[in-house]
C-alpha cells in the first residue's frame, strides 16, 4: 500500500468489513460454539492454550467467580476466532490482488481478454486508412488518376500463450482482396533470446520496420522498394543490456524487393541480420533522447542456377519500383512471346542497409541508405546490377513527443479540458538510383539491356512535406505533398528520343483509425 498520508495508528484495513454488526453477530455465534468446545480444547495437549481473560478478573465471590472466568475464556476464544477470520480475509484479499481474476480490457490499444496471471491473452486490433491521392497536372499519364482509396484494412489478433509465446495474425482486405501480412509465433524465454517463426517483416529497412500507423508520411520513402515487405522464415532476436544492443538474425525463403510472398519457389534461402545500438538507453544518458544506430544486411540466391527460359518468364523473381504517388516508374524487360526477351533473377541478391534515428522531445530525425545488388539474366547474358536508395526525414511535433513509435500527444483531444492533441510537421528528401548498367550502353551496342529507359526511370528524387493532426494515438488526419523529379523514363512527344518522365506533384490525404 502506498500512501501520501500515513494511515492512522493501529488502523486495521480489513476490520471495517466485520464491524460492528457483522463482527458482533459472528462473535456471538462463535461464543456459542466455543462454549461447547473450550472444554475439549483443554483436554487436548496439542491444542492452543486455553485463553485466559484479557482484563484482570474482578474479585467475585462464590459461584460468580467461576462464571466470570468462564465468560472471559469464551470471550477470548471468540475474539481469537474472529481475528483469525479477519486475518484470513486479509490474506485472501492480498492473494486476490497478487493473482487478479481474468480481465476484459478495452482501451485505445484494442479490445482484449487476459487471464489473471497474464499468462494468456488475446487482443483485437484494427488499422483502417482511408486515403486520397491527387496529382496536380498529371501530364496525361494514366497511372496518375486522382482517386479516393482504402489503403489499408487490417484487423489483427495478437496475444500470449503460457506466458511464453506471443502470437500475431494480420490480414489486409484493402483493394477488395485478402492478403496475409503477418502470421507468426514469438517465443520469449529471455529478453535477450527470442525466437520468431512465421511470416513477418525481415529486419531490413529502418522505416519499413516502423508500424504502418506511425509513419511521418502517408507513403514510405523510395527506399522501401529495395527491401521486402514481408518474408516467411525464422529469426533469433533479443535485447542485450536493457535494450542498448538489439540483434536479429534469421533465415527466410527469400523475397523479391517490395514483395510479400507466402511460399518459396526454389531451394535457396536468404540470411538476414540486423544490429541496432541505442546508446541513450543507458540510464545515465537517457536525458539525451533516443538514438538508434541500425545496420542490416541480407544475402541469398534467387534460384539454384539458371532456370529454364519458360520458367523464368513465368516467375522472373525481379521487382518493379513505384514513385511516391504509387505509379510504376521502373520495371525490367519482359516478353510474352520471346523467353530470351525476359529478364529474370540469377542467383545472388545482397542488400546492405545502414540507418539511424534520433528523437529528442518533439524533434525526430530518421535516415537510411539501402543498396540492393542483384544478379540478373536475359537470354544467356548475366550481369550484377546495383540499385540504391536513401532518405532523410525530419519531423517536429507541436503539443507532443516524437518517437520511432510515432508522434504521441502530450494531452489527447478533450474539448472539455481544452486539450487539442498534437500536430506533426515533417519534411523528407528521398531518392532512388537505378544502376546505369540496367539500360545498356549507348557507346557499346553489344551491351545487354535489362530495362528500357524510355519507360523506366534511371533516377527519382523526391521532396515532401507532411502535416498530420494527431488528436490521440488512435486517430490521425494527414495531408502530404510530394514532388518527385525523374531522370529518363519517357520520350519526347512523337519521337523515340529518351526524355525525363514528367515531374510528379502528388497531394495525399489520409484519415486513419488504429487501435
Amino acid at each position, binding site marked *: *500500500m502506498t500512501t501520501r498520508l500515513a494511515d492512522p495508528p493501529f488502523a486495521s484495513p480489513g476490520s471495517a468489513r466485520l464491524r460492528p454488526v457483522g463482527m458482533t453477530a459472528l462473535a456471538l455465534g462463535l461464543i456459542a460454539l466455543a462454549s461447547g468446545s473450550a472444554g475439549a480444547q483443554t483436554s487436548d495437549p496439542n491444542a*492452543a492454550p486455553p485463553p485466559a481473560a484479557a482484563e484482570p478478573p474482578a474479585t467475585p465471590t462464590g459461584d460468580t467467580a467461576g462464571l466470570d472466568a468462564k465468560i472471559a475464556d469464551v470471550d477470548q476464544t471468540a475474539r481469537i476466532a474472529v481475528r*483469525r477470520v479477519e486475518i484470513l480475509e486479509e490474506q485472501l484479499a492480498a492473494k486476490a490482488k497478487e493473482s487478479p481474476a481474468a480481465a476484459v480490457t478495452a482501451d485505445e490499444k484494442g479490445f482484449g481478454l487476459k487471464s489473471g496471471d497474464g499468462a494468456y491473452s488475446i487482443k483485437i486490433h484494427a488499422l483502417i486508412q482511408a486515403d486520397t491521392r491527387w496529382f496536380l497536372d498529371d501530364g496525361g499519364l494514366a497511372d496518375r488518376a486522382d482517386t479516393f482509396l482504402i489503403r489499408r484494412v487490417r484487423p489483427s489478433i495478437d496475444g500470449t500463450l503460457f506466458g511464453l509465446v506471443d502470437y500475431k495474425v494480420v490480414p489486409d482486405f484493402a483493394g477488395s482482396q485478402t492478403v496475409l501480412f503477418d502470421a507468426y509465433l514469438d517465443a520469449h524465454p529471455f529478453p535477450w533470446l527470442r525466437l520468431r517463426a512465421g511470416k513477418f517483416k525481415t529486419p531490413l529497412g529502418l522505416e519499413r520496420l516502423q508500424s504502418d500507423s506511425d509513419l511521418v508520411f502517408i507513403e514510405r520513402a523510395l527506399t522501401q522498394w529495395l527491401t521486402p515487405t514481408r518474408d516467411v522464415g525464422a529469426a533469433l532476436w533479443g535485447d542485450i543490456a536493457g535494450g542498448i544492443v538489439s540483434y536479429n538474425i534469421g533465415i527466410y525463403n527469400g523475397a523479391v524487393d517490395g514483395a510479400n510472398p507466402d511460399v518459396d519457389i526454389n531451394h535457396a534461402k536468404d540470411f538476414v541480420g540486423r544490429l541496432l545500438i541505442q546508446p541513450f538507453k543507458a*540510464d545515465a544518458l537517457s536525458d539525451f533522447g533516443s538514438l538508434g544506430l541500425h545496420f542490416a544486411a541480407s544475402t541469398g540466391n534467387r534460384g539454384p542456377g539458371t532456370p529454364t527460359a519458360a520458367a523464368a518468364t513465368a516467375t522472373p523473381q525481379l521487382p518493379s519500383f513505384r514513385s511516391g504517388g504509387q505509379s510504376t516508374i521502373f520495371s525490367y524487360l519482359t516478353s510474352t512471346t520471346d523467353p530470351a526477351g525476359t529478364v529474370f533473377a540469377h542467383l545472388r541478391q545482397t542488400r546492405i542497409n545502414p540507418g539511424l534515428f534520433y528523437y529528442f522531445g518533439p524533434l525526430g530525425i530518421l535516415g537510411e541508405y539501402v543498396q540492393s545488388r542483384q544478379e540478373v539474366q536475359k537470354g544467356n547474358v548475366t550481369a550484377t546490377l546495383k540499385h540504391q536508395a536513401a532518405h532523410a526525414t525530419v519531423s517536429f511535433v507541436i503539443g507532443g513527443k516524437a518517437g520511432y513509435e510515432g508522434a504521441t500527444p502530450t494531452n489527447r483531444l478533450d474539448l472539455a479540458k481544452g486539450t487539442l492533441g498534437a500536430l506533426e510537421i515533417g519534411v523528407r528528401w528521398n531518392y532512388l538510383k537505378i544502376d546505369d548498367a540496367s539500360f545498356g550502353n549507348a557507346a557499346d551496342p553489344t551491351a545487354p539491356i535489362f530495362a528500357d529507359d524510355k519507360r523506366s526511370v534511371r533516377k527519382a528524387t523526391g521532396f515532401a512535406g507532411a502535416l498530420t493532426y494527431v488528436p490521440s494515438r488512435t486517430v490521425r488526419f494527414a495531408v502530404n505533398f510530394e514532388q518527385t523529379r525523374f531522370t529518363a523514363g519517357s520520350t519526347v512527344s512523337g519521337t523515340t528520343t529518351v526524355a525525363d518522365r514528367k515531374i510528379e506533384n502528388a497531394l495525399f490525404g489520409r484519415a486513419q483509425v488504429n487501435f
Partner: protein
Amino acid sequence: MKLARLAILTTSLSLLAVAGRGGTPAQAQVKLLNVSYDPTRELYQEVNKTFAEKWKQQTGQTVEISQSHGGSGKQARSVIDGLEADVVTLALAADIDAIVEKSKRVAPDWATRLPNHSTPYSSTIVFVVRKGNPRQIKDWEDLVKPGTVVVTANPKTSGGARWAYLAAWGAAQQKLGSPDKAKDFVAKLYKNVPVLDSGARGSTITFAQRGIGQVLLAWENEAQLLVKEMGKDKFDIVYPSISIQADPPVTLVDRNVDKHKTRAAAEAYLKFLYTDEGQEIGARHYYRPTTAAILARNQAKFPKLKLFSIDDLFGGWSTATKTHFADGALFDQIYKPGS
C-alpha cells in the same frame, strides 16, 4: 550553401526541441518514494515534512515524499518485483540483501555507505501487557507458562516478529545455556501464540483493539506509541532483563534513483536521519538514537537493559535466515499452524 541551410534548420529545430521540453536543466520538483516497514508511518511522516522544508531552503527544490508500509519482507519483495522505491527503510538487513541479490537494484556495498552499517536508529523488543500486568509477566520465562496468551506476528513475513523470535531465542540461550534448550523454549512460547499476523502493526491491532492475549511482543517504539495513543490507563510496558538490539537499516535503491534522477535528494534524505534534528525526531518516536549525545539527552525514554546483537548469537542475518526462517528451517519445525 545547401549544407549551411541544413545546419541552420537542424540547429533551429534542436533549439525548438529543447524549448519544447521545458529546457531548464534542474528540475523544480522531485518526488521520492520511501518503502518502509510497518511501524514507521508516524516517524517518516515527521521526517518527510521536516526534510522537505530543509531541502527547499537549501536547494529551492520542492521534494514530495511518498510512503509505503507493510511487512518488511513483503516490502522487499515488492521492490524486487519492480516497485520503484528511491529509498528503502526496512526492518532487516536481510531484506535489503535480498533486494541486492534478487534484483541488483541496490549496490552490494550499501551497508557501508552510511554510518553504523547504514542504521540511523536502533530499537529492541519489549513486552506490552494490560494495565496492572494481571499475569505478572516480567521476563521471557513468563511467556511460556501455561495459559499465557502471547501476541506476535509471523516471523516469516514480519521483520519485527523476526527480531522478536530471535530475542526470545537469544534470551533463552543465554539463560538456559544451550541452543537445544532455546529451541524447546521458543517452541513452547509459540504454542502460546494463537494468532499470527503478517506484520507488526497487525499484531498490535490484535492485542490492543481486538483484546486478544495478555502480552504483546513489540518493537520498543511501537510499544511506546501504543501506550501513548491508546492511553496509559490501558497498557504497561515491561522491559525484560535481556533482549536483542534491533537495527533497522536504510539505503538508496541505486537503479531507481538513477532512473528517476533523484540520487542527490535521496542521499540527502537518508543523511538527514543522522543529523541531530533527524535523531531527535527518531527519539520523539521512540527509536534509540545512534548519536550518543542525542541518546543521552533522551535517556529517560529508553531504559537500560542488556542487549545482544544478531552477530553475537546468530552469526549475522544470512546465517540466521538460513537456520531459522528459510522454508523447512527451525521456525517451520517448531510452529505448526492450528496446533
